[in-house]
């Protein structure tokens, strides 16, 4: 494999693919999506739904594109009358027992059965309206998964995921023929930490997420590329937003990081992004009390406190804020005696057995590597102790601060914890869903996340807040930073670890830092 390229023709388009490529993947290169149900690039090939029938010259019958390897000189026709009528027949059989309950099905709008039936199915059924469709009651499979057997088309993606990827074979196909359904082990539960992926894999609405059940229709959702904040793995995700509220997290494929999957911890880790008790205006201490004010005054206030401060400065930062914010927070202390630290919440590690170097990591911090690359240390307790005597203490979105200081405490965060009420100034910032920025995952890969919803009130991205402060303090060499791209380019220009990277080049898939070293798993 690898170097050797094969040339074939698909629907009149000539493509070159490496040896061993399946026809269905080669067709994607030719810009043709062959309808399919059982095939999924992240799972072993089963070839049982028969949906991807295509005509291949010199083959006696229609072939399934998902289990046929490309060969030199092959001529494939996916849209010939014969292939289309073959697929139409398969669809008709799949629809015999499929209920007509699209209006109440959560999959409606993103259902492959709907899409392909609309695309090339029969316009009307040939079955009698009196035919009683197969009926089985809804089953509870696990903490977040419901099974609706009536809608199932038995593609077995869920069975193969649990068996070959999660390596916990609790699902199977029970019974035979038209009585077949997906069965669960009599003592088993679908409670594997990665089991939620079967919901995404299901091409129809047979496996449903209890968390998302009846919450929104697929066409109401705005989809935004983001990075999971659940751990230091940095899985690529899509945030689904409805009316400025995040309602669902789904995996976004990135072959370098998470392939097609995310764990259930990351999938459920979105409610905090919708918190209502946010700081909406900058607060400054005047006459012993915090008063709401505008950004101009708040930035002047903080800058004047910092300008007057001689002595030690301490930054206690969260490993959940963007790399750009961490960079500008560090720039703020240029010329001062400075120390920065972050603390990492630890949890249980949960690997996905079938995919190398993919796990829910014990370190529940999406940007711990970014903080380390920028010179923040893990000595959090020591930094808290130093903070007691420091002249300026900056706390960046760390809600459980246990810091007591004689100096000026500046709290920059999304919500206002009780302890932060002693601060000299409180500046509101946007959370990960409300701004653009980058994270560096545990393997040193810099990945961008995008804005999914609007920030409350006057909250601004943390990199903007710190860059304005830096400009105010230094008299502004380099000027104001207006976009996340400019913020990142400033970071890349001045930090060795990010040298040579540009924001545009990171794209949706991210790129490794020049100094990236793969941490052994």
């Amino acid at each position: 494999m690898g170097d050797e390229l094969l040339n074939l023709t698909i629907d009149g388009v000539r493509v070159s693919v490496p040896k061993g490529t399946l026809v269905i993947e080669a067709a994607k290169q030719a810009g043709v999506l062959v309808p399919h149900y059982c095939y999924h690039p992240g799972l072993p090939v089963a070839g049982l739904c028969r949906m991807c029938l295509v005509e291949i010259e010199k083959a006696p019958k229609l072939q399934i594109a998902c289990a046929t390897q490309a060969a030199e000189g092959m001529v494939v026709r996916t849209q010939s009358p014969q292939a289309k009528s073959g697929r139409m027949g398969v669809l008709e059989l799949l629809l015999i027992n499929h209920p007509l309950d699209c209006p109440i099905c959560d999959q409606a709008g993103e259902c492959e059965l709907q899409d392909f039936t609309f695309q090339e199915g029969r316009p009307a059924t040939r079955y009698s309206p009196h035919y009683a469709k197969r009926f089985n009651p809804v089953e509870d499979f696990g903490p977040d998964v419901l099974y609706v057997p009536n809608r199932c088309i038995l593609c077995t993606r869920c069975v193969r995921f649990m068996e070959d990827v999660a390596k916990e074979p609790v699902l199977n196909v029970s019974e035979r023929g038209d009585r077949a359904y997906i069965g669960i082990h009599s003592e088993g539960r679908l409670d594997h930490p990665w089991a939620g992926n079967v919901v995404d894999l299901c091409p129809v609405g047979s496996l449903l997420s209890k968390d998302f059940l009846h919450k929104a229709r697929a066409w109401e959702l705005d989809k935004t590329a983001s990075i999971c904040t659940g751990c230091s793995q940095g899985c690529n995700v899509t945030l689904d937003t409805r009316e400025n509220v995040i309602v669902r997290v789904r995996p976004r494929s990135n072959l370098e990081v998470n392939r097609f999957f995310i764990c259930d911890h990351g999938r459920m880790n979105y409610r905090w992004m919708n918190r209502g008790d946010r700081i909406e205006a900058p607060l400054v201490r005047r006459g012993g009390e915090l008063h709401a004010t505008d950004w101009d005054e708040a930035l002047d206030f903080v800058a004047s406190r910092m300008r007057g401060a001689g002595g030690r400065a301490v930054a206690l930062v969260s490993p959940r804020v963007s790399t750009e914010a961490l960079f500008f927070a560090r720039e703020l202390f240029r010329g001062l005696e400075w120390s920065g630290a972050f603390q990492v919440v630890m949890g249980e590690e949960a690997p996905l057995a079938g995919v190398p170097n993919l796990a829910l990591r014990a370190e529940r911090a999406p940007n711990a590597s970014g903080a380390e690359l920028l010179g923040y240390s893990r000595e959090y307790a020591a930094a808290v102790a130093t903070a007691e005597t420091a002249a300026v203490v900056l706390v960046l979105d760390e809600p459980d601060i246990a810091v007591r200081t004689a100096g000026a405490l500046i709290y920059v965060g999304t919500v206002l914890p009780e302890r932060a009420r002693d601060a000299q100034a409180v500046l509101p910032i946007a959370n990960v869903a409300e701004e653009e920025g980058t994270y560096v995952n545990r393997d040193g890969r810099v990945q961008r996340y995008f804005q999914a919803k609007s920030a409350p009130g006057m909250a601004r991205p943390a990199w903007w807040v710190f860059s304005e402060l830096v400009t105010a303090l230094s008299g502004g060499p380099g000027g104001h930073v207006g976009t996340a791209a400019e913020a990142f380019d400033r970071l890349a220009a001045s930090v060795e670890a990010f040298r040579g990277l540009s924001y545009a080049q990171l794209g949706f898939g991210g790129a490794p830092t020049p100094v990236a070293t793969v941490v052994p798993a």
Partner: protein
Amino acid sequence: MAIGVKVMKRPGAEISYLRATLKGMALTLSHLWRPKVTMQYPEEKSSKDWTLSPRWRGTHRMLTDEQGRAKCVACGLCPQICPANCIKLVPGEDEQGNRYPLIYEIDEFRCVFCGYCQEVCPEEAIHVGVHYENSEYSRDRFVYDLERLCAQTHPVSTLWDPSDPKGE
């Protein structure tokens, strides 16, 4: 310089209004013996010559099942198709675990009475009604909630049937 005004000399029969007045009176009197077309509206709402069209699109009505519950399954198609964006729907579950609208409100002031909601409804639940008397004492009464939509009793519209364009 004064402007000279030319005074027309007309025959006496033309200057007199008597003739025209009598002519008008005669027309008015002749209507006393003609058939009546006026309907006594608030008392009388239809007559043998005029009824509201069965295709009339007026204020909405939600149809109910045998247990008196709305037939709506909260599929979300009517708020999606509504060109005036007047339908608010929050889906949820009822006691049996079936999909059911938690909130279903139609703002009749925003509604343009196009009837698309009825046309798109897969459950034949929401309908526009053959009804036109909608006066209220306050504006907020024009946002109809699910309870009120279910309580309406007026007949529902048949809409326009493409296979029977003249309604015959």
